[in-house]
C-alpha cells in the first residue's frame, strides 16, 4: 500500500505538499471507512437473528409483546436503510451508538477496552521488531554458517506455528507445570499492590500473550531483515566502506543497518491489521480484557453497533498506521517524497 502512494519523486518536498498529501489520504480514508460501514451493515443484517433474540434467549420465556416492545425501543423495527442512514449520520457526529447488550455507549466500551489491546499490541510489536531486527542482523553477518541456519529454522518454526496453539502450550508449560508466569487476565485479581508492584504484575501477565502474538511477525522481520541486510551488503558504497578498511561491526551497524531497516517500516504498517485479528485469538486464550475479545463477543451477541464500531475503529487504526508508515518512510529515506 505504502509504495503505491509514495512514488519516488526526486523533487524537494514542501510543507504544502505534505499537507495536500495528508488531506488526500484522509479523504480516501473517509470513503474507505464509509464503504466499510455499509459493507458490514449489509453483512450483519443478512445474519439471522438480532440483539433482541439474544436478550430474549438469555432471559428465557419472553413473550411476543415483550420482544416487539424491545425491538421498538432499540429502533430495530425500522427498515435497514433507515437504520444505516441513521447510523452514518451518528458516526459523522462521532456518536457510535449504544451497545444493547452492555447497556453503555459503544465509544465508552471501546475506550475502556482499548488500553489493554494497545498495551498488548505495542508490546508485541516491540518484541517482534526488536527480536526480528537483532536476529536478522545476527544471521546476515554470519550468512550460510550454522548460526545463520539455526536462526532460519527458528524463524520458519515461528512462522508455521498457530499462535493461539503456542499460547496454549505456553500456558501448560509456564503456568501449569512450572508456575513461573500467570496465564490469564491482565493483573492479579483482588490484590493490594503499590504502583510498582502493580506495574510489575501487569508486565508479568503481559509476557506470555505478547510473546505469542509477536512470534509470527518476529519470524517475518527476521527473514526480511536478513534479506534486506544481504542486499545492502551487496551495494557499491558498502563495498567501498569495506574496502576502506572499516571494521565489520562498524559497517554492519553504521552503514548497512540504517538502510536495511527501511523495508521493515512498511511491514510495521501492515502488521497492525494482522495484530488486531490475532488479538481475537490471543485475548481468548489468555483472557486478556481487550478489543479482540470484545469484538468476538459482539458477533456472537449480534451487538451490531458495537461490532461495527470496533471494525471501524480497527480499520481507522490500520489507515492511520499506514499514513504514519508512509511519512516515516519518507523521513527515513530522503530519496522518497510524499506526493
Amino acid at each position, binding site marked *: 500500500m505504502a509504495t503505491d502512494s509514495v512514488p519516488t519523486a526526486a523533487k524537494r518536498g514542501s510543507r504544502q505538499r505534505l499537507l495536500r498529501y495528508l488531506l488526500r489520504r484522509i479523504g480516501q480514508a473517509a470513503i474507505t471507512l464509509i464503504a466499510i460501514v455499509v459493507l458490514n451493515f449489509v453483512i450483519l443484517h443478512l*445474519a*439471522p*437473528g*438480532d*440483539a433482541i*433474540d*439474544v*436478550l*430474549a*434467549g*438469555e*432471559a*428465557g*420465556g*419472553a*413473550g*411476543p*409483546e*415483550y*420482544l416487539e*416492545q*424491545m425491538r421498538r*425501543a432499540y429502533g430495530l423495527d425500522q427498515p435497514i436503510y433507515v437504520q444505516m442512514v441513521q447510523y452514518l449520520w451518528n458516526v459523522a457526529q462521532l456518536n457510535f451508538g449504544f451497545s*444493547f*447488550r*452492555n*447497556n*453503555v455507549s459503544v465509544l465508552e*466500551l471501546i475506550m*475502556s*477496552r482499548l488500553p489493554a489491546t494497545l498495551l498488548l499490541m505495542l508490546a508485541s510489536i516491540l518484541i517482534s521488531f526488536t527480536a526480528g531486527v537483532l536476529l536478522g542482523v545476527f544471521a546476515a553477518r554470519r550468512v550460510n554458517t550454522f548460526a545463520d541456519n539455526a536462526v532460519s529454522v527458528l524463524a520458519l518454526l515461528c512462522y508455521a506455528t498457530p499462535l493461539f496453539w503456542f499460547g496454549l502450550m505456553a*500456558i501448560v508449560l509456564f*503456568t501449569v507445570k512450572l508456575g513461573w508466569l500467570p*496465564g*490469564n*487476565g491482565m493483573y*492479579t*485479581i*483482588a*490484590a493490594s499492590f503499590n504502583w510498582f508492584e502493580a506495574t510489575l504484575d501487569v508486565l508479568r501477565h503481559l509476557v506470555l500473550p505478547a510473546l505469542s502474538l509477536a512470534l509470527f511477525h518476529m519470524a517475518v522481520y527476521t527473514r526480511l531483515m536478513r534479506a534486506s541486510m544481504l542486499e545492502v551488503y551487496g551495494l557499491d558504497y558498502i563495498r567501498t566502506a569495506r574496502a576502506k578498511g572499516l571494521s565489520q561491526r562498524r559497517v554492519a551497524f553504521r552503514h548497512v543497518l540504517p538502510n536495511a531497516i527501511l523495508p521493515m517500516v512498511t511491514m510495521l504498517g501492515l502488521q497492525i491489521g494482522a495484530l488486531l485479528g490475532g488479538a481475537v485469538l490471543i485475548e*481468548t486464550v*489468555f*483472557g486478556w*480484557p481487550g478489543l479482540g*475479545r*470484545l469484538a468476538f*463477543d459482539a*458477533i*456472537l*451477541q*449480534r451487538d451490531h453497533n458495537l461490532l461495527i464500531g470496533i471494525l471501524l475503529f480497527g480499520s481507522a487504526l490500520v489507515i492511520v498506521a499506514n499514513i504514519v508508515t508512509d511519512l516515516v518512510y519518507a523521513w527515513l529515506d530522503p530519496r522518497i517524497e510524499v506526493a
Partner: protein
Amino acid sequence: MIRTISRLGAVATLVAGMAAASAAFAPSVLAQGTPVRGGTLSMILNPEPPVLVTGVNSASPVAAVSPRMFEGLATYTPDFKMVPVLATSWEQSADGKTITFKLRPNVKWHDGKPFTSADVQFSFMEILKKVHSRGTATYLHLSAVETPDPLTAVFKLDKPSPYIMRALAGVESPIMPKHIYEGSDPLKNPANVKPIGTGPFKFKEWERGNYIMLERNPDYWDAGKPYLDAIVFRIIPDGGARAVALESGAVQYGTQYVVPLNDVARLGKLPNLNVTTAGYEYNTSVNYLEFNLRKPYLQDRRVRQAIAHTINTDFLVKNVWFGFATKATSPVTDKQKDFHTANVPQYPYDLKKAEALLDEAGYKKGADGIRFKVTIDWSPSGEMFRQTAELLRQGLQRVGIAAEIRNADSPTYLRRVWTDNDFDINIYSASNIADPVIGIQRFYWSKSIQKGVTYSNGSGYNNPEMDKLLEDGQVENDPAKRRKIYEDMQRLVMTDLPNMGLVYIQWFTIHDKKVKNLTTTGLGPMESFADVYMEK
C-alpha cells in the same frame, strides 16, 4: 408481627409449615455456626451481565448479582415453603382471587426513601407484568394491586393463579423503587446499571470487563446483617482462569459452569475448597431433546421413540456431565417433589429396539444403510450440548439415521428453532422454575406455539388432551388434584415425546471453606447473602 396465615387451597401446601411466619424468622432457615462481621467475598461472574436488575432482564448473569440488592416479598425453603422477606405475612381468599400481603415496616431504599406498598404496586403492575420476560405470563391474571395503607398490598386476580405464590422470590419478582422508575422507560433507566434496592448490599461500582462491587447496606432492615463488608463479582471469561482463581484463594465463590466439569473433582480435593450441590432447588435445569413435529419423519411417534432409544444417558451423565447430572425420568425435574413422577414410559438405551421401531414405522434401510437424514441443533450455551449432539449423531448413525450437526451462535440458533422452526432435533436446557405453569407448560401448551418466543413450544406439539391438562393445572387450587394433573401430563409427554428430558442438571457451587452460611434457602446462590459470613 406474628400473624396466622389462612390455610386455603393450594396456598396451604405451598406455605405449609409457615403458620408462624415472623420477622425474626427471616431467610436464615438453615443457618449454622456463629457469624462474624467483616470481610469481602469475591465471587466469579461470567459472562458479564448487561444490567444488574432481574426485573428488566432475567438472564442468568443478571440473576447472579441482582438478588443481593433487590428483595422479593418472600423466599423459599428447599421444599418450597414460603419464608417472609419484604412481606411479613399473607392471606389468600377462599376463591383464590385475592391475596393480601402485609409488608415489613421500617424498610428503606438504598437512597434513604422509605419502602411502601406503592413500590409493590408499581413493581408488579408496571415492571413485572409489562417488561419482565416471564412476569408477563405469571401475572397475566393479576388485574390490580390495591394499596389501602402503606404497609398493605392486595393482589386482585381475574382467575386463581396458584403459581404466583411460588414466584415471589427476589430473583424472580424483585420489588423495585417506584420513585426511581416512575415515568421512565424501565428498560433504559440508568438505575439498571446503578441499582437502588432494599437488599443487604448496595451498589458501589462497576468496572466493565473487570468487576462489579457491592458494599454493605448499614441501614438494612434486619439489624446486624449483613455480615460481609462487601461483595466483589469478578468477571473472568476463561474457565481455566476461574479454576486458578479459586485454587489460589483470590476468589472464594463460583457457581454453575464455573470451571470445566472435568476439573471439578480435582478442585474439590484441594484443602481450601468445598464443592456442594445444595441450594439449587429453586433453580433447576433439565437438559432436553426436542423434536420438530412439523417434519415428516418426526411426525411418527415411533420414530421419536426410536431416537430416544439411541441415546446412552449413562454415558452422558458420566462423560459429558462428569456426574453433575442424573438420568432424567420425566420432563419435570425430580427436585420439584410436589409434581415429579417417574411412573411414566421410559426409553432405555437399546439400539435393537430402536431399529425395530424404525422398521415398524416403515423406514427401512436403503442400499447405503441409511433410512433417512436429520439435522441436530444444539444450544450454544455450553460445551455439554455440543458433546450431547455428537453422542446423538453417533447413536443415530448406528441405527441407520444419518445426522448432521449444525453449529450456530446464539442468535442464529434461537431464531432457527423458535422463530423459523427450521430444525429437526434440538438439544438445549431450560429451567423448570418453581412451578409447572411458569417452567414446564411452555413446552407443551398449544398456545405456547409462538413464533419468536424462545424456549416456548418449539416442537409444535398440539394435543387437545395436553391443553386440557395444562389449563386445568393453571387454576386448580387443590394440591392433591393439581399433582394428579401434572402426573398425567408427564405420562402424556413421555408417550407422545414432543420432547424428552435427557438429564436433570445438578448445578454446584465451589467455594472456599472459610465462607459460611452460603446455603440458607432453596435459592442458594440467588439468595440475598445477608447471612453469609467469612471465618477470619
